[in-house]
């Protein structure tokens, strides 16, 4: 760009007036050669040629090389603000200082505001972050307090519920004891009534004892005061005992009961037999208590030193919400209307933990329930192989006292197994069949002393089987055991008619009467 000479001259004059250039020339050692302009405004003096300018103006140290340099806003040691220019010329350098004070002040004001704003912003951010942390802490503390409050409320509710429930649980048998005791003391009471009163008092007393024992067990377990007593025992005997104990309870509700033992389960194991028995009784008892139809199964397996027992029922099932509660003391989920202290599962779980095991629950409403308990056991080498467990002998009143054979017809395998189980225990010889035609041919061939027939079965039904047998001259008793309601005419085809669910003791008693009363 070229400008008219007088304009250039004007600009030069204006620039010079504004920036008051001071220029000096130094040699390659930094010694002053010559100066131009007024040095006073930039805190310098009239230096004599030869002055060491590297000492007089230290801000030029290190920046003198073959290139021209332009450094703006250099505040010198004297506090003067200059624009510094260095211009190499052969082995020498021109150094020019321009007054930058005015521009500096303006820029500094702007930059100062900007920086202060940024610092303020940062301070605000820190405060916001701190506030957020405090709020987060508060929310956390409130949640913790809420949790503790809910726990306290739940604990208080449980305690109240426990007291209410226990007073009811204790009051009922106590009332029975008091009332029967009063009855027994009344004038003119027969020996029979006194006997029945004493029996009732005994029952109530035993119930009270079991309640107290449950409470004490729970307290001891919670306080860690129960010690395990491990010894070797016959696991199969234990399972047989359980079957003998539980099957009648299940049968009273027309439930089938089965124990399924995996082939790998060792016969002799080392564990606390009493506690294991207690766990299984609790779980099986619960399964029977809450199941109204179907079956109860105890499935036993063994793997890597751990015994697993799964109690599978076809009861109403337990909702996910209630599953959290059932193992807590005095809570029974939606089954809270049932009898019991609500301690059974709590005790069971604590016992399992005490034995180094665990309990899990798999259930949903309408799908039944499977409670699995795993406990570690030691095994002992044994030559014993599994044998059919000996069933305990039932009451003599219902046992066969002479060789007696019975033919049973039922298409329901579980029901068949259940009836078979009871009759077998009572000493009867059994012939089983699952179809009408098979039952007819077996009855003709083996001539049993009694026939028990289900009625509603596929193919030839029970009524037709009975009629067929009578036509063929079969003169032994034929008993109907059916869920169907039979008309009087239909009932006439049978010697006796039982409707499912039948009370097993009553059925056994009738079977005995029909086969033994000559």
């Amino acid at each position, binding site marked *: 760009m070229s400008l008219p000479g007088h304009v250039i001259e004007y600009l030069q004059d204006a620039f010079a007036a504004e920036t008051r250039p001071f220029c000096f020339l130094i040699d390659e050692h930094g010694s002053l050669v010559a100066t131009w302009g007024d040095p006073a405004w930039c805190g310098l003096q009239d230096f004599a040629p030869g002055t060491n300018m*590297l000492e007089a103006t*230290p*801000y030029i*140290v*290190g*920046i003198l*090389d073959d290139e021209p*340099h*332009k*450094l*703006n*806003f*250099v*505040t*010198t*040691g004297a506090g003067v*603000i200059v624009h510094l220019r260095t211009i190499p010329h052969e082995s020498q350098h021109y150094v020019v200082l321009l007054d*930058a004070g005015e521009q*500096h002040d303006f*820029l*500094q004001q702007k*930059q*100062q505001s900007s*920086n*202060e704003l*940024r*610092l303020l912003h*940062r301070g605000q951010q820190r405060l916001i972050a701190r506030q957020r942390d405090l709020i987060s802490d508060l929310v956390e503390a409130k949640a913790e307090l809420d949790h503790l409050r809910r726990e306290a409320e739940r604990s208080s509710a449980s305690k109240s519920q426990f007291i209410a429930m226990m007073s009811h649980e204790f009051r009922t048998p106590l009332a029975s004891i008091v009332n029967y005791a009063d009855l027994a003391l009344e004038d003119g009471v027969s020996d029979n009534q006194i006997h029945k009163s004493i029996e009732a008092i005994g029952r109530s007393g035993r119930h009270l004892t079991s309640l107290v024992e449950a409470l004490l067990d729970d307290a001891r377990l919670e306080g860690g005061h129960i010690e395990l007593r491990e010894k070797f025992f016959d696991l199969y005997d234990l399972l047989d005992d359980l079957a003998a104990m539980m099957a009648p309870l299940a049968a009273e509700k027309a439930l089938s009961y089965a124990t399924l033992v995996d082939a790998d389960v060792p016969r002799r194991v080392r564990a606390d037999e009493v506690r294991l028995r207690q766990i299984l009784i609790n779980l099986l008892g619960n399964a029977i208590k809450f199941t109204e139809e179907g079956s109860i199964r105890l499935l036993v397996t063994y793997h890597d030193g751990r015994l697993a027992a799964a109690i599978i029922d076809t009861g109403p099932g337990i909702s996910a919400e209630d599953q959290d509660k059932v193992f807590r003391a005095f809570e029974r989920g939606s089954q809270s209307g049932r009898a019991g202290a609500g301690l059974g599962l709590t005790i069971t779980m604590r016992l399992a933990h005490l034995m180094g095991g665990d309990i899990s629950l798999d259930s949903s409403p309408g799908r039944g329930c499977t409670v699995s308990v795993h406990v570690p056991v030691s095994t002992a080498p044994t030559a014993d192989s599994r044998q059919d467990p000996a069933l305990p002998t039932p009451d003599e009143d219902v046992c066969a006292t002479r060789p007696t054979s019975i033919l049973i017809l039922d298409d329901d395998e579980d029901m068949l197994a259940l009836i078979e189980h009871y009759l077998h225990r009572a000493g009867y010889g059994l012939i089983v069949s699952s179809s009408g035609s098979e039952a007819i041919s077996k009855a003709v061939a083996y001539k049993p002393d009694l026939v028990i027939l289900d009625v509603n079965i596929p193919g030839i039904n029970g009524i037709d089987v009975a009629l067929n047998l009578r036509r063929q001259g079969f003169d032994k008793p034929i008993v109907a055991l059916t869920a169907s309601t039979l008309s009087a005419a239909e009932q006439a085809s049978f010697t006796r008619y039982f409707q499912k669910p039948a009370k097993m003791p009553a059925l056994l008693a009738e079977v005995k009467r029909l086969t033994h009363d000559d």
Partner: protein
Amino acid sequence: MTLITSKVCVVGDFAVGKTSVVERFVNNQFSEKYLTTIGVKVDTKEIDLPLRHVTQKLIIWDVAGSDHFGDSEISYLRGSAGFIFVVDGTRPQTLKTARSLRRQIEAKYDRRPSVMLANKKDLTNAWEISADQIESLADDYDAVYRTSAKTGDDIETALIRLADLIVGRELHE
């Protein structure tokens, strides 16, 4: 005693206390008032290094705070024999800025002795740079100090250490 003159530059983010560090070192003074530096402020201070029989004249360039050097800022650093990096212990971000500036300097100039000052040590409650973070700087700088321009803690120690490093390097060369 031999006199050696060296230019050193003080760099770092804005408001980390660079000017206060220089003011404390050169004039043993401190002001609570924050005043932004524009461009560069040049001061000098002589230090005796008796073990080296040297008097070191430091020409200290207090460069305006920035998180990134432009062309004009980086030209201030020409001929610098050493660097003083300053960070604010209450602002972890300034540590990242120092790292970024160091990379810019090393890309433009040869590596020179450098010390790191984690400044504002007196603001203990607001301190946000961990001991681990400070330790991790040891590989990047010749020495690291926790300093306070306000109280003067370790300012002179750090500058003397830098002067010694520079002299050692120059004598070695």
